């Protein structure tokens, strides 16, 4: 259930890593708000902290300080078990290298989050089919990831991220391993998900596609938020 107000609200969050005697400020006192149904592209050079920020929003990492309110709950205050539940029910994640389990079929990969969420076995096939229909890949249910192209694998990864009907979709360089045409197809697919009431935060270093598909761009540098601006497509 979507709550009124922003989908994600980051308030003065920092994430420091200890490195020998000193520390690295991966994210440094950053505040940002992402609206419901918004497609936000996080841009920045390597080491700017954008992936760290995505991990913090996704509950894979904890901030050193600050608060992260996502879908109405402060995830910085959640215990490990609650954080796992948050990742399972609120978040869908897509990675640059797809991260599909190679020994499982396409169908089994998509079913995995349903197993973790203890969804009834009878309900699962319908949910898997529904997710695969949204990425237009229902014809290769029994195939293994190695038998699919990069683009198809990313579509499976998107279906896997969608199958638990999350409110927020986090994508870490989803087109990084794809050619530009396939990348555009994937971004089109992501953009479509906002129609289903989904908020998307995508990390990328490719400004062009981000300008084209996202609603807003947030530029990061040295762990800080340098600027935010509406994407060109939106501005036009």
């Amino acid at each position, binding site marked *: 259930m979507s709550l009124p107000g922003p989908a994600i609200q980051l308030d003065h969050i920092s994430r420091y890593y200890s490195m020998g005697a000193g520390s690295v400020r991966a994210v440094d006192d950053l505040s940002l708000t992402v609206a419901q149904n918004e497609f936000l592209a996080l841009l920045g050079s390597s080491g700017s902290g954008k992936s760290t920020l995505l991990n913090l929003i996704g509950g894979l990492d904890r901030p050193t300080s600050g608060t992260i309110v996502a879908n109405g709950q402060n995830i910085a205050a959640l215990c*490990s078990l609650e954080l796992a539940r948050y990742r399972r029910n609120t*978040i869908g994640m897509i990675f640059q290298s797809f*991260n599909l389990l190679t020994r499982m079929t396409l169908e089994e990969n998509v079913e995995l989050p349903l197993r973790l969420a*203890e969804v009834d*076995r009878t309900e699962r096939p319908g949910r898997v089919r529904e997710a695969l229909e949204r990425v237009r890949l229902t014809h290769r249910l029994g195939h293994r990831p190695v038998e699919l192209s990069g683009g198809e694998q990313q579509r499976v990864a998107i279906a896997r991220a969608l199958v638990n009907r999350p409110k927020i979709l986090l994508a870490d360089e989803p087109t990084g391993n794809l050619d530009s045409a396939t990348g555009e197809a994937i971004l089109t697919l992501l953009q479509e998900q906002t129609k289903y009431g989904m908020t998307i935060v995508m990390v990328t270093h490719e400004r062009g596609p981000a300008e084209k598909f996202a609603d807003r761009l947030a530029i990061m540098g040295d762990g800080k938020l340098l600027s935010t601006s509406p994407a060109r497509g939106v501005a036009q």
Partner: protein
Amino acid sequence: MKARDLTDLALRNLREAIFRNALTTLGVAVGVASLVAMLSLGVGLQELASKRLSQSGLFDTIVVTPKSTFRGAGRPQREAAQTDKPRRVLDEDARKEIEKFPNVIEVYPQIRFFTEVRFNNKPFATVVAGMPDSSRNSGSFDGMRGHFFSSPAANEAILQVEFAKELSEKTDSLVGQDLVLRYAERQALSTNAPATGNSTESGGGFSVVPKELRLKIVGVVETEPAAGYGGYGNARLLIPLETAATLRAAQVNDLRDIVRDSGASKTTYPSLSVRAKSPSQVEGLETSIKNLGFNAFSLLDASKSLRTFFSVFDLLLGIFGSLALAVATLGIVNTLAMAILERRREIGVLKALGAADSDVQQLFFVEAGVMGLLGGLFGVLFGWLLGRALTYGTNVYLHRQNLNSIELSSVPWWLVLAALGFAVLVSLAAGLYPASRAAKLNPVDALRYE
């Protein structure tokens, strides 16, 4: 995650590295097999000893004596002094009374008397014992030369081999020959009451008349079936109990009884043997018999000592058997630790998709448990086969020595279940460290792992 999904995933993971996991499982199987084989030997030997002892009648037999029988001459009669009740006499009435107790198979008097035997016109002194017909199956007569008594009242004798050697150097040739038993028969003094049958005497006492009985030697036995407690030394000439009873041979207690209680009109017995249905009922029967006013004792305590001995023996065998299993557990730890390294990224993906630490931990636990269960199943099978092979080899050797075959090993159900349970438990313990390490993996680090 639900148990079924967890098991599904675990089995899938195990199938992925089937060769390595099969080797680890085989390691567990060898460990369990060693444990099962060792314990099955212990259990088999214990059962063998118990069976032999049970057949001997030592552990299901209670010896009943009158209260004063075992008190030395001149010692005060403490029991009698403490109660006003007249001391009970071990006679036919007492025998019938004991026979009515539940769980009693038979009650028979111990008839033993010291006497003279003539063989080839030479005298030989020995103790004669009456053997009940039930002793036929006691195991004491297994492997004897000749055969058991043809009937419960036959005029036949079985010689203990040491006594047989006194009669003749060629003991085998004795079977089929006759010997003469010379004994003192009690005869009632016919003053007031005439003797009626075996169990009555006149009130005034009895006279002793020398008698002879010709007996056919039907067997020579290596063991000492009439040895043990309750008698007066080892009897080396065995005759059927009914035959012994009809002899009315004077026994050592006769004179004492007639002096102590001249009014007694019935035959008294120095002791009665009471056979219970099983050793477990001996204790209760002993109490009931003592309540009648008799002394009663059995070898139950010795049986308890035997059980203690075998418990310690089994424990030692179990410890030695467990050594291989201990080595196998290291294999499980190693396999699972390797699996964590290989599946580091997968663990990261699972966590990113919402798996809790406990889900990851349980997954590794189930994998360890499955390896333990499979290893346990195969181990029990291998252990059983090993036990059968040992039994077979031992029996081949025993047959060459002209000895009866034995069941050297035994794998009872409790051992199967205990071995399986132990294998799973040990495997889970081995999985404890890898599972906890997997659960604690940082998902960000795990996802970054190539």
